[in-house]
């Protein structure tokens, strides 16, 4: 193989993902070719160095400005998004079913404020699940007639619950 052909295999060689035949060919070439040896050594250094570059910390003054953006834009996005990065607690799956149910009611009787309140109460469930449910509700338009009657009773219960606070 030519130097050019060897060169494009060097990363895979270092990753250890070449086939045995390719690996042999690369190693045979490296024994003979100092140019490719040198490139390999530099490539290795580059790979290690890139991995070691630290994340640059966000300057406090910038963080301060960023914190103020959500406040300004508050009206435009649901408050629970502020909890976006909260760690997911373990009990998520347990309550997920209840939330799904709530969402199906949401599409059934789109009392948005009411459900938003309910979702806010469930914030600690973690963002990802809530967000996916929320967007599901946003994108699915379920016709009231198409939803089974059995869902209506729990929805009523949910509504009553909402009135309590």
């Amino acid at each position: 193989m030519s130097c050019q052909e060897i060169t494009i295999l060097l990363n895979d060689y270092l990753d250890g993902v070449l086939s045995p035949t390719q690996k042999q060919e690369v190693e045979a070439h490296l024994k003979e070719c100092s140019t490719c040896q040198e490139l390999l050594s530099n490539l290795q250094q580059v790979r290690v160095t890139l991995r070691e570059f630290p994340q640059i910390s966000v300057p406090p003054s910038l963080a301060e400005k960023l914190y103020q953006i959500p406040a300004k834009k508050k009206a435009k996005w649901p408050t629970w998004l502020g909890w976006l990065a909260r760690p997911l607690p373990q009990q998520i799956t347990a309550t997920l079913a209840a939330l799904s149910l709530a969402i199906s009611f949401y599409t059934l009787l789109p009392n948005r404020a009411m459900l938003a309140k309910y979702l806010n109460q469930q914030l600690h469930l973690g963002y990802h699940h809530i967000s996916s449910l929320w967007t599901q509700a946003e994108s699915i338009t379920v016709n009231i007639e198409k939803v089974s009657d059995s869902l209506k009773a729990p929805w009523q219960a949910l509504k009553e619950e909402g009135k309590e606070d």
Partner: protein
Amino acid sequence: MIVNTYAPQIFNLAFHFTHSREEAEDVTQEIFLKLFSSLKKYKKEMNFTAWLLTLARNHLIDKYRREKKEKSLRQELDERVLTESGLLSPENGHDQKEVKLIVWKALDQLSTEVRLSIVLFDLMGKTYEETAEILDVPVGTIKSRINRGRLQLARLLADQQPQKRRI
């Protein structure tokens, strides 16, 4: 909070894109403003981090195109950042320090798309799949960009410190 979790990623991406701390700060703010007004477009089937970083990447590329920034402007190296981040700390041997500096500067000579791929994959630790999603290209394209980029960096490194290699 959304800011705590995502600001470092956006800021780092912006920094490696602009290579100016001040510019990176401005751009990070712009991206967050855009984020909060685009949240409505976010769909459940999307990976949030990837979605946000794609938004960031698009903003960076659009802005760069629009303003037609001089390349030299982006090539300025903020040594203060490297020092602060411990990259140039005395515990790193002289040679190691030199290599780091060379590679850091050499990143700027890569094309935008190659640099972004390397920053996301090698510096930020994203997977090939995540990087591909963020940059909106096939995984194979990302792999070859990273391959090419690293080789380019290796050659630039060789150019900068030839005397060591000869011994």
